C-alpha cells in the first residue's frame, strides 16, 4: 500500500476520532483508573480513601474470594469438557454435504445464544424446579423412581449452571467449528479414505490438524468466557445476590460485582479485577506459546 500524499495527515485521525474519544474515556482511562482504584477503598464513587496494599493482602485470606475462585475454576474445567466436544460433535454431524435441512439445524442449535443470559436464567430457574420443573416432571413421568423433588438448584448448583451454560453456548461454538470444517479440503479426506483410513483416523490425522487454529480459538474463548462467568449464576440465584446455597454459585466476577456495586467498594472490586486479568492474560499467553510450538 503506497503512502498516499493526496490526503491530509489528519484524515485517519478524523475517522478514528469518535471511536478514540469514546475509547479513551470509557476504556483506556477506566483501565488506568482501575489500577489506581485497586489501592483505594471507596464507599460509592463519591468517597475514596487510599489504603495501599490492604486490598491485595486481604484477598489472600478472604474466604469468599477463594470460594469464588474454586467455583469458577471447577466451572471452567467442566465447561471445556462439556461444551467443546458437544460443539465439535454437532458440527461433525452437520458437516455431511448430503444433509438436507442443514440450515434449519444450524439455526436451531444457534438459537439459544441469541436469546441472552437473562432469558436463560429465568427459563432454567423454572425448568430445574422441584416437581413443576420440566426436568423433574418429565424424568419422573418416564422413570417413576426418579424423585420429583430432586433439588437441582438447591444442592446440584454446579451441574445446573453447567447445563444451562452448555445449552446457551454449545451452538455458538458449533458454528465456528462448522465453518472450519467446511474449509477442510475434501481431497485430503478422500485421499485418506482411499488409503484405507477409518473414520476416526481420518478425523485424527486429517480433519483435526486442519481445524487446529479454530479449535485453539474456541478453547481460548471457552476458558476466557467461563472464567468470567457472572450473569448466569447471578440471575439464577438472584435472591441471594448470586451466592447460591452456601455460596456454591459464587463466581469471581459475581464477587467483584457484589463488592463494587452492593458494598460500594470499587477499590477492592478493582483489585479482584486485576487478579482476574492477570489470570486471563496468563492463560492466553500460555496457550499462545503452546500453539506456536504445535505449528513448528
Amino acid at each position: 500500500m503506497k503512502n498516499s500524499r493526496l490526503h491530509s495527515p489528519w484524515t485517519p485521525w478524523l475517522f478514528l476520532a469518535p471511536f478514540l474519544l469514546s475509547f479513551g474515556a470509557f476504556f483506556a482511562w477506566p483501565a488506568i483508573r482501575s489500577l489506581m482504584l485497586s489501592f483505594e477503598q471507596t464507599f460509592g464513587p463519591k468517597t475514596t480513601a487510599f489504603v495501599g496494599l490492604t486490598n491485595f493482602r486481604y484477598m489472600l485470606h478472604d474466604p469468599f474470594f477463594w470460594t469464588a475462585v474454586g467455583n469458577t475454576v471447577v466451572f471452567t474445567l467442566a465447561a471445556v469438557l462439556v461444551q467443546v466436544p458437544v460443539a465439535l460433535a454437532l458440527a461433525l454431524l452437520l458437516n455431511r454435504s448430503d444433509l438436507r435441512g442443514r440450515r434449519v439445524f444450524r439455526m436451531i442449535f444457534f438459537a439459544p445464544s441469541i436469546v441472552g443470559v437473562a432469558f436463560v436464567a429465568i427459563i432454567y430457574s423454572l425448568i430445574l424446579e422441584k416437581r413443576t420443573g420440566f426436568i423433574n416432571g418429565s424424568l419422573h413421568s418416564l422413570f417413576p423412581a426418579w424423585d420429583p423433588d430432586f433439588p437441582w438448584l438447591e444442592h446440584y448448583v454446579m451441574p445446573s449452571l453447567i447445563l444451562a451454560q452448555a445449552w446457551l453456548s454449545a451452538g455458538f461454538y458449533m458454528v465456528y467449528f462448522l465453518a472450519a470444517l467446511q474449509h477442510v479440503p475434501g481431497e485430503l479426506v478422500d485421499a485418506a479414505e482411499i488409503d484405507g483410513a477409518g473414520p476416526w483416523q481420518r478425523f485424527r490425522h486429517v480433519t483435526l490438524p486442519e481445524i487446529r487454529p479454530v479449535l485453539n480459538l474456541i478453547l481460548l474463548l471457552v476458558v476466557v468466557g467461563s472464567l468470567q462467568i457472572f450473569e448466569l449464576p447471578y440471575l439464577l440465584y438472584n435472591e441471594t445476590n448470586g451466592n447460591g446455597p452456601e455460596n456454591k454459585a459464587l463466581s469471581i466476577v459475581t464477587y467483584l460485582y457484589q463488592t463494587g456495586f452492593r458494598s460500594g467498594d470499587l477499590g477492592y472490586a478493582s483489585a479482584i479485577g486485576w487478579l482476574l486479568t492477570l489470570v486471563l492474560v496468563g492463560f492466553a499467553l500460555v496457550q499462545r506459546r503452546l500453539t506456536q510450538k504445535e505449528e513448528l
Partner: protein
Amino acid sequence: MLKMFSPGLWLVLLLAAGSTVLIALLPVRQQAGMEMWLFDANHAKIANLIATDWNRDHPKNPVQIHLITGAAIQSRMMSGFYSDTPVADLIEVERGMIGQVFAGPLADVGFMDLTNRLNREGLRTGINEPSFSPWTSRGHIFGLPHDVHPVMLLYRADLVAAAHIDMSTIETWDDYFRIMRPLMVDLDGDGRVDRFLLNASPTSIYYHEVMLLQAGGRMFDDQNHPTINEPLNAAIIARLATWYVGPNHVASEVPLGGASSMRLIREGYVVGMLAPDWFAGGIRSGLPDMAGKFKVMPLPAWEKGGRRTSVLGGTMLGITKASRTPEAAWAFAKALYLSPLTAERLYDEARIVNPIKANWNQPFYDVPDPYFCGQPIGRLYIQLAPDVPLRPSSAFYGQASQVMNLAIIQLCQYADDHQLYDAHALEPEAQRLLDGAQRELQAQMDRNVFLRATR
C-alpha cells in the same frame, strides 16, 4: 446510496428513528410531591389509607406510595446514596438492609439524622427505647422504628392439653424440654421421632440471634467492637448444639414459607415455635383452620429469673437526605407511624405491636383473641416490650451473624463426629470455633477504613 442499505439495515434505521422520536415525545417525568417505598404489602395497605387523608389535607405536598421488592429497594436505595440517582423521600428499611447504609463515613449515611428531632419532640422517650437500637449508628438515630417485635413461645395448646401438661410450671428452657418431653412421639411407627419441641436447627441463623440475645450474649459491645468469642457466647452455643443434634435432640426446623412448611405446622411437627408478634400474626392469617389450637407464653428463661423475651426482625422509616421537602416528609412519617389508626390496623392485620407507648393503652390490644384460645396476645406482647434486648447497631451485624452461624454449624458437626452431646463438654470446642469466627470478623472489620472512627 440505496444499494448500500440491506433490508436489515433499513429495519434498524427505521427502528432507531421511530424509537428516538417516541423517546423524545415521552420523557421520563419527575413526579411532583413525595415518594415512599415499601416492601411489605400490609404496610402498603395501611400507608395508602393514611396517604389518602394526607393528600386531601396537603394538596401541595402529596405522597405516592410504591410497593417494590426488598431487593429493588436495597439496590435503588444504595445506588441513590452512592451515586445520587433518584431515590424516594421516605423509605421503609428492613433489619437486614440497614448494615450497608451505615458502612461508610457518618456524613455519607443517606438518611437524615433524626436524633435531635426525636429528642425535641419528646418521641425519644415516647417510643419503646430498645426499638431504636438497630437504626442507630455512632450515636445517631436515622429512622423512626416501626415495631417492637418481642418474642414469645407459640405452642400447640391442644397437644399440651391432651398430654395434661401445665405450662405455668415451666420457668426455664431446661424445665421446658424436661416437662414437654412426653410429647416427642413417633407418629408413623418408623422408629424415628416425628414431633419436636422447638422450631430451630443448626442453620436457622435468625433463631440463633433470638437465643443469643435472650441469654444475654452479645456479638458487639457498646463501642461496636466484636465480642463474638465471649465465654458466655461459647456456653450459649454449646447448649444450643445439644438441642439440635444428638440422639435425643429436641429441636428441628420448619422451613420458613412455602407449602411444605404449612403442612408441617398443621401436623404438629414442632410443638413450640419462637414467635415474634409478626410470626404469630402470620400463623393466624396463614392457617385459619388451626384456630383455637395455639397459645403464647413468655419464653422460658435461660437461667432461673432470667429474661423471658427476645427480639427478631424490625423495620424503620427513614427520610432520605435527597428529599426536597424534608419537613413535609417528617410530618407524613409521624402521621403514619404515630397514628392510633395505624397501630390498630397493624395489630388487626398482622398482630404487630406498635412501639409508641402512648398507643399501648388502646383497648384493641386487650381483646381476647379466639385464634389464640382467648388470650389478649397484644397485651401479652406489650408487657414484654420494656424487656426486649437491644439489637446490634453495627454495620457488620450481617457478617457477624454469618460467622456465628457457621461456628454453630461446625460445632454441631463436631458433636456428631465425636458423639459428644453434653453442653459443658462442648464448650472448649465452641470457644475455639468462636475465636476463629472473631478473628474472621475482625479481619473484615479492620479492612473498612471508614468505620475506623468508631473503634
